[in-house]
């Protein structure tokens, strides 16, 4: 609180020094965990992304949906799509996700995500995986479902007053 004496560059006490070394070691460990997991871990943040436009992404998604469509659901007639492993597409727009995906457990897919209007959030529940979905960006999520069941895609980035209406679906079969 008061101004210190002119010389305050004094050596550290014993306990201060010990704590400093322990804290430093912990910080080094925290830093090392990220590259280590990047190399050895099975869950890493996807880094593949491309520029796109809403029109382009919409066209690609609709062509994909038409090709592998196996049914329709809800009053909005959202197509249910059962694609083979490989590139698959989805888009968000206020306030729905398109289309509904039917995937197979253990297969690997490259999910192309983008938005046709505002920023949205892709939140896969209940497994709780979250990614941002931005307009003009094609975010490629390479995923391998390791459990079967019905999953919902909740929008978890605020996208104006109907935000809580925005839910989609992914079904994983054995």
């Amino acid at each position, binding site marked *: 609180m008061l101004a210190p004496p002119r010389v305050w560059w004094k050596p550290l006490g014993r306990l201060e020094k010990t704590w400093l070394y322990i804290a430093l070691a912990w910080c080094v460990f925290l830093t090392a965990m990220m590259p280590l997991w990047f190399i050895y871990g099975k869950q890493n943040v996807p880094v593949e992304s491309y520029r796109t436009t809403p029109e382009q992404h919409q066209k690609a998604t609709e062509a994909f949906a038409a090709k592998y469509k196996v049914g329709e659901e809800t009053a909005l007639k959202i197509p249910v799509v059962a694609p083979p492993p490989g590139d698959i597409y989805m888009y968000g727009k206020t306030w729905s996700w398109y289309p509904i995906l039917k995937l197979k457990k253990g297969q690997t897919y490259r999910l192309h995500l983008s938005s046709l209007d505002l920023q949205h959030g892709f939140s896969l529940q209940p497994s709780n995986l979250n990614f941002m979905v931005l307009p003009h960006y094609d975010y490629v999520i390479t995923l391998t479902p390791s459990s079967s069941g019905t999953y919902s895609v909740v929008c978890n980035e605020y996208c104006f007053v109907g935000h*809580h209406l925005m839910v989609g679906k992914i079904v994983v079969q054995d």
Partner: protein
Amino acid sequence: MAVASIPMDKQAATFRTCPVTTFKVDLAAEKLIIANAVAAVVFLAIGGIFSLLIGLTRVPAIHLLPANWFYRSVTGHGLDMLVVWIVFFEIAGLIFGTAIMLNARVVAPKFGWFNFGLMLVGALIVNVMVLIGDESAVMFTAYVPLKAPPLFYLGIILFAVGALLAVIMSFVNVVVAKREGKLNGSLPLVVFGLITAAILAIYTLLNGALAYVPAFLYSLEVIPSPDAALYRNLMWGFGHPAQQVNLAAMVAVWYALAWITTGANPINEKFSRVAFILYLFFINLGSAHHLLVDPGLSFGFKATNTSYGMYLAVLGSLIHAFSIPAAVEVALRKQGHRQGLLGWLRNAPWKEPGFGGMVVSMVMFGWIGGVTGVVIGTEQLNMIVHNTLRVPGHFHATVVGGTTTAFMALTYYLIPLVFRRELKFKNVASWQPYVFGLGMLLVAIGFIATGLQGVSRRHWDISFAQAAFPSAIPGTVDLTLAIAGIGVVIAFIGGGMYLWVVLASVFTGKKTEANALMLITPMWSQPKIADEEAEHLQPRGTFALVIVYLFFFAAYYLSNWWLLGGRVWGIR
């Protein structure tokens, strides 16, 4: 500057001498501090009303507000609390630190009032916009291409410009104080910390301009929508370092409260100052930890930036986490409280609101806020946290349990010293930090536990009653949100206690010169000790506490990796 050569007695400023601290107080500085502090408290009250409404809406059993009012209130709450309350208070603190604590004057009081006016008008515009229509329900982040009416952005920009000018004025205060020969040698540590905060603030507010000015032009339809990812980067270049401003200011307040309530001086000035410098250099990188699951950025960029280079800003906080309690421990040991490892704690002035507030603030910030923050900011772990309620859980521990509690505690001491009024309802003040802290603890834990189950933030209806599909939300969410709801009510009461004491004292307290620093507990006296290095004066208790803390930290951190590795699909 011409003023540099004017001798003290011919200066434009009028001074009084504070009988307690012996600071020479510039009366113009005092008026500015009062105005900024009162504005801060008023907006805290408005934000507080929003907080009760949204808090009770998030409890499924109550679900108070309709959807549009919920989103409007979250927008108002975020802006009033995170921006208006905190920044007004920090400006008051900066004027205090750069004028009163240096026995110096405010260089340009009229300019100070101009800045205050800009900030006030900006804050009022934003609040009015949020109250009159749904169009401004865009949250304080206002992510483009989401678009609010131009006035909404204008309000934010006016506020930010006023704040920027006020920060610049405080630098000039220090420079002029130095020229006028009032500053011999180093700045006191508290002022050093405040200046750290001010330097960060300049960088922050410039980034804010880069984000909100294009959004404003977009809203005026002068330009097309800015790129969504770039906007997020700039917006968080403002939003994140703003939290470091709060952090540095809060740590400075901790040092001040430790000295006021126990006479503690940092045992090693070098240790503490280097820690502030670590903030300055490394913390600005942190904005990337809001972008961890965004498209368009590489692993290297994300990992380097979120760890602030190498978690060196975290190291800064770990240093303060030791040095402040250690300073208190050594001070109390010197005063004779030497029983065992923790005897000094038993004899600490727990009834003194400044001490209680400091401890609550440190525990909430360090144990809950800091630990959860490191986890959220770890690149891979962010995938299971981003935009869930764990995020508000984290920052209500940092910026509310930590910063807000510390600022509240400091206010009690400003009332006799700056407002020159007697503090009323001292007993209420004495309990207030604990009530508020308990409420926030429950809010934070409730939110974190709910977010762990996948529930998202800023979300009106987790039952998805009107949505196309249901989303399976585990039943335990009702329990964890009920815990948060109880916390919301307790914290609201704690906040009300603060407003009650402060407003009652400021407007109806007896006018009087301060006569003591401490408000409740008798004043400490610091004995002269011959052997400063003696074994029984070493901060052994603090050392034990920080080791326990580290174990807690490690357990929470590692269990999150276990969650990610064990539960989640393969993702690349």
